[in-house]
């Protein structure tokens, strides 16, 4: 029998590594060591990781290897290494959320996502870089310095989960966890040529996910293939009694859907409002080509209109800062994390204010003040209240569109990766990155970004977003997998193979 694997360990996808381990061709410890070596070799340049615990990773890899040797029943991802976004708590491991204010904090508890990863035997390599408290689309707003895009080190890897996406594209880890509040899984996936999924709100527990905006946040899988994302999705999803907003229903069979990959007869809605003006030429070109591929695969592509999507960005930048201003209040220097200015004379109010001033970066302060403004008496109805009504309108638009189509599609981001520093103090320009991804967060349904090629003008990856109704996450995988296979067939290889050597 031919070996499962061919070539460099770190370039393999998770499913292949898992099969190779099952076949006894390689151990988890070897794979983990290979990833750690790769991190040693390239992370100085990429800076995807904020923290790597080699000993702990190797120890958990060896545990899986021992279990396998004793013929224990193991999950499909047992022994596969993973990079965890630094916004999820992991007992005893520093969790900074990319912020100075949490420097040195070691949570005394595991997030549910980490708990499920441990149960699945997944080997956690370390914590990945992110925009501070997930506020940003470039990972430049990390207090610990930016992450660089492996496709071009002068460019951003997207954000807020740029670290997780870059770790995949730099072959530092085959799997990663991201969180998506307005596109923080999907946009980094798009600009790094990887796959990212925002599950249905409530599909993956938020317990232990340090909240940015509670009604929008959702953790999800990041991977280099749709199948890997499905396997990871399956491992982390499902009801959790510790999260009141967790959905108490069976997880859609996303792995079967990824395997099925048949979209003949599927109705795909092209959202008129998410495209055209403001979208880079190369993005539009690759998107149009992908639509042709989908049609060739037997899908019926129809145009749908979601007229209120136009207001999504505005509503989002009211709801998010409002919730964030409250969620981030607890970082006051009293119980954990940074404390500044406590000289035995200063009052508690002064110490809190100095701590927060020193501990938060510019974007976080900007959004906290915006949220404080939107919620304050006299403005609530005009801003927060109205934004919540827009939210209803967006949900109605989705409902109407899903009457006409099984899934909806759009470019994931309007542009390819931009240069580091280009938009860092231009919040409005930065916010436009999320224009296509935000509606899904507002309505709570699910979406995926799949790579569809490189933009001709800059040679950088372009992503296509697939959106499905709440609880129909399996449709994302069916359509995403079909598109991925067709493109790989067309190119003769996976897009990620084209990443320049580091």
């Amino acid at each position, binding site marked *: 029998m031919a070996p499962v694997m061919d070539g460099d360990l770190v370039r393999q996808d998770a499913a292949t590594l898992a099969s190779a381990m099952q076949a006894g061709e390689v151990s988890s410890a070897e794979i983990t060591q290979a990833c750690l070596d790769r991190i040693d070799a390239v992370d100085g340049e990429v800076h995807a990781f904020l923290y790597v615990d080699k000993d702990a990773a190797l120890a958990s890899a060896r545990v899986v290897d021992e279990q396998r040797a004793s013929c224990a029943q193991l999950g499909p991802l047992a022994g596969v290494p993973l990079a965890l976004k630094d916004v999820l708590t992991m007992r005893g491991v520093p969790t900074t959320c990319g912020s100075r204010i949490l420097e040195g904090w070691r949570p*005394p508890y595991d997030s549910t996502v980490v708990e499920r990863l441990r149960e699945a035997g997944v080997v956690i390599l370390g914590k990945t870089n992110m925009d501070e408290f997930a506020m940003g689309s470039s990972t430049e707003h990390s207090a610990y310095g930016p992450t660089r895009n492996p496709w071009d080190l002068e460019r951003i890897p997207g954000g807020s989960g740029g670290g997780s996406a870059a770790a995949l594209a730099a072959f530092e880890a085959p799997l990663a966890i991201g969180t998506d509040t307005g596109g923080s899984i999907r946009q980094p996936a798009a600009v790094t040529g990887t796959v990212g999924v925002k599950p249905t709100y*409530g599909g993956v527990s938020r317990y232990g996910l340090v909240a940015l905006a509670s009604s929008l946040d959702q953790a999800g899988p990041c991977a280099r293939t749709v199948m890997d994302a499905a396997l990871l999705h399956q491992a982390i999803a499902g009801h959790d009694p510790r999260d009141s907003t967790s959905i108490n229903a069976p997880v859609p069979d996303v792995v079967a859907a990824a395997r099925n990959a048949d979209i003949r007869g599927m109705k795909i809605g092209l959202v008129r409002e998410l495209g055209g003006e403001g979208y880079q030429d190369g993005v539009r070109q690759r998107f149009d080509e992908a639509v042709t591929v989908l049609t060739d695969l037997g899908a019926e592509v129809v145009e749908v209109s979601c007229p209120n999507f136009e207001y999504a960005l505005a*509503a989002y930048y009211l709801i998010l800062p409002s919730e964030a201003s409250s969620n981030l209040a607890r970082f006051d220097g009293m119980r954990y994390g940074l404390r500044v200015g406590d000289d035995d004379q200063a009052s508690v109010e002064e110490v809190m204010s100095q701590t927060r001033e020193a501990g938060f970066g510019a974007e976080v302060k900007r959004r906290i*003040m915006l949220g404080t403004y939107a919620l304050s008496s006299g403005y609530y109805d005009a801003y927060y209240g109205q934004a*919540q*009504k827009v*939210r209803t309108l967006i949900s109605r638009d989705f409902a109407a569109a899903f009457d006409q189509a099984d899934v909806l599609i759009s470019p994931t981001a309007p542009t390819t990766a931009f240069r580091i520093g280009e938009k860092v103090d231009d919040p409005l320009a930065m916010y436009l990155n999320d224009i296509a991804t935000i509606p899904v967060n507002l309505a709570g349904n699910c979406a995926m970004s799949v790579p569809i090629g490189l933009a001709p003008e800059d040679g950088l990856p372009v992503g296509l977003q697939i959106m499905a109704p709440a609880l129909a996450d399996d449709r994302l995988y069916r359509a995403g997998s079909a598109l991925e296979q067709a493109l790989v067939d067309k190119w003769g290889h996976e897009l990620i193979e084209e990443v320049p050597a580091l």
Partner: protein
Amino acid sequence: MAQISREEVQHLAHLARLELTDEETAHYAEQLSAIVDAVARVSDVAAQDIPPTSHPIPVTNVFREDVAKPGLPRDEVAAAAPSWEDDRFKVPRILGED
């Protein structure tokens, strides 16, 4: 054109416990005004009869049984504290109250 003055920025910063520098205050006054202008368009569409959405997925009545379980060991609680004394979190003096 929404105009958020420096005084207003300072008031917001106080509510949010941020001790901004003068430079930041001026910068944020300008940026917040522009952002508020951009987001104010939510008022254009949302008519009276549209119900607001606070929770994206409509779920109600999620409760927990009233059963007490052990919490965290106190040494772990203390380990994170910036300042700790007599088994309690030590915090600076509180002003503004009698």
